[in-house]
């Protein structure tokens, strides 16, 4: 009972700053039905935050937010494109005017050509917009410094698609071994290939040909052979990588094996203070974590080393499934905090789980909040109009 009270208090203490943030950035400035939508969104995120901390279960509640973000993103994005441009088709005039919202997925493809040629190959505004290059880069930098590849499980508004597909049904129909080098290195090869191809062509090759999300965002016209081929590519990639393969393998296939941005985050994400540690004394080598990890980030080799691979997205699945509770989240460069002998309330507040949940949901709500509130608002208005 005492423990429960402590957990309620510590969870509330960490949740309150997040709620205040949501209040100031979402609720206070909204008017009309938008205010109602902002309240619904804020209560939703606050509830998830509180439950994550109270239950000490990152995976379950994070996943709800993550899938909701993915599902609520595209109705808002596409409807805004239609109301602003008249269609979701990307015309040459939109690119000439730099009207394309900057997408974090092209960051690695854009950096190298920019470094060599001082040319930004993505047709986006640099400043003065929520979706401008600098806004997105600042948020990305903040997220990378705090969470590293945690971005891929807390902030990315695309990843929820394969998380959702992989959670439908329980039977695994296609086995995907995390130990297979073919599986592990493909995304890094994609990263190198796309960086070189973007440098060679000075165009966003990933965006034009290899993005599986084009079907639910914006895409080029199909009036030419190029456009027709691109359309075939995007349909095949969307269905294959985000629906069929995650469903068959029960893994986040796109995030774990294909996404070049994920590969990039794995390389730069080492600055993050969070590490998932496997206690060798408690570990019985049952390999459940290895089998269940959605992004194939635990291998036999990493298990022996007592840690996850650098591709770990801090999703929390291994913490949940380990029967011996041998896996824990730790701070890498604040080691003293890991073993503080203080009051349980303070201990809970200063725990890595509290920090990760707070940072994850804070940055997640900053990046996805606008879209999510917008979709809720449009749904309310739609129902209002129908009634």
């Amino acid at each position: 009972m005492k423990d429960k009270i402590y957990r309620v208090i510590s969870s509330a203490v960490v949740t309150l700053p997040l709620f205040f943030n949501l209040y100031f950035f979402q609720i206070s400035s909204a008017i009309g039905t938008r205010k109602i939508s902002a309240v619904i969104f804020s209560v939703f995120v606050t509830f998830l935050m509180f439950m994550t901390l109270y239950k000490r279960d990152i995976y379950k509640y994070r996943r709800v937010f993550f899938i909701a973000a993915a599902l609520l993103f595209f109705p808002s994005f596409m409807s805004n494109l239609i109301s602003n441009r008249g269609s979701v088709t990307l015309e040459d005039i939109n690119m000439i005017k730099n009207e394309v919202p900057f997408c974090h997925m092209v960051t690695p493809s854009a950096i190298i050509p920019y470094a060599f040629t001082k040319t930004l190959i993505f047709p986006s505004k640099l400043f003065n917009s929520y979706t401008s290059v600098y806004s997105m880069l600042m948020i990305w930098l903040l997220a990378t410094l705090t969470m590293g590849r945690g971005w891929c499980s807390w902030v990315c508004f695309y990843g929820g698609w394969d998380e959702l597909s992989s959670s439908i049904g329980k039977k695994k129909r296609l086995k995907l071994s995390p130990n297979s080098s073919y599986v592990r290195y493909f995304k890094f090869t994609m990263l190198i290939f796309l960086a070189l191809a973007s440098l060679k062509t000075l165009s966003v090759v990933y965006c034009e040909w290899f993005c599986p999300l084009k079907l639910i965002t914006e895409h080029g016209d199909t009036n030419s052979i190029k456009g027709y081929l691109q359309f075939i590519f995007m349909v095949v990639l969307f269905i294959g990588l985000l629906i069929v393969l995650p469903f068959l393998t029960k893994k986040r296939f796109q995030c774990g094996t294909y996404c070049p941005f994920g590969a990039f985050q794995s390389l730069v994400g080492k600055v993050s203070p969070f590490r998932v540690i496997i206690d060798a004394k408690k570990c019985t080598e049952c390999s459940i974590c290895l089998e269940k990890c959605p992004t194939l980030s635990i291998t036999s080799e990493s298990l022996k080393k007592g840690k996850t691979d650098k591709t770990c997205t801090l999703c929390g699945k291994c913490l949940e499934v380990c029967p011996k509770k041998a896996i824990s989240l730790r701070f890498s460069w604040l080691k003293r905090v890991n073993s503080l002998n203080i009051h349980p309330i303070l201990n809970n507040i200063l725990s890595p789980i509290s920090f990760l949940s707070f940072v994850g949901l804070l940055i997640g709500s900053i990046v996805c909040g606008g879209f999510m509130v917008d979709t809720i608002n449009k749904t309310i208005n739609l129902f209002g109009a129908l009634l």
Partner: protein
Amino acid sequence: MIVEAFLLGISSGSYCVFNCAPVATPLFLKENMTKKENFRRLLLFLSGRLAGYLLFGYIIGLTGAYALGYFDPYIRIKLESVTMIILGLCLLISGIEFKNKRLCSIKKLKANKRIGVITLGLLTGLSFCPPFFVAAGRVFGTTGSLGGLIYFLFFFIGTSIFILPFGGFFLFSRFKSAVRFMGKYLRIMIGLYFLLFLGLLNLFTEGVKL
């Protein structure tokens, strides 16, 4: 003329690197590659390039103005497409390891073999980039066969400045498994890119750029 050829080679710099990097990178990404082996591969690759340039310089100087009339832009694009198809096939074959070795009858073109490295060097040397055509144009009407050889020798020296850094890829042999698999994937991806986008689509249509 020699200085001009050398400067023309240097001027191809970024274009040359952008075109040859996709071929050269996977070539030097190989498991357990020692500094010596890496250097040997680099020499083989460069010798292939040199052979390609010299051969081309000699032939083009010899045929001279007679061939000039046949080299309109349409033929240039088609010739480039054929070269790209051959390059793409080489890379694809080198990227796909057949379990049954007998399936691969043109093993000699595999990048792991010396002849494969030389062939890739030769074919990248003969890729029809703009500076290459400028050099060819100069040789056509002015130098003759010997002059063509010398001109392209110095053109080769100029372009090689940008190829030499690829000799540093032995450092990556630290990451044995990763390098091996990424090199294979890269060869397949780039092979497909050359074969489909720069080769077949350019050969049979007006061209589709990546």
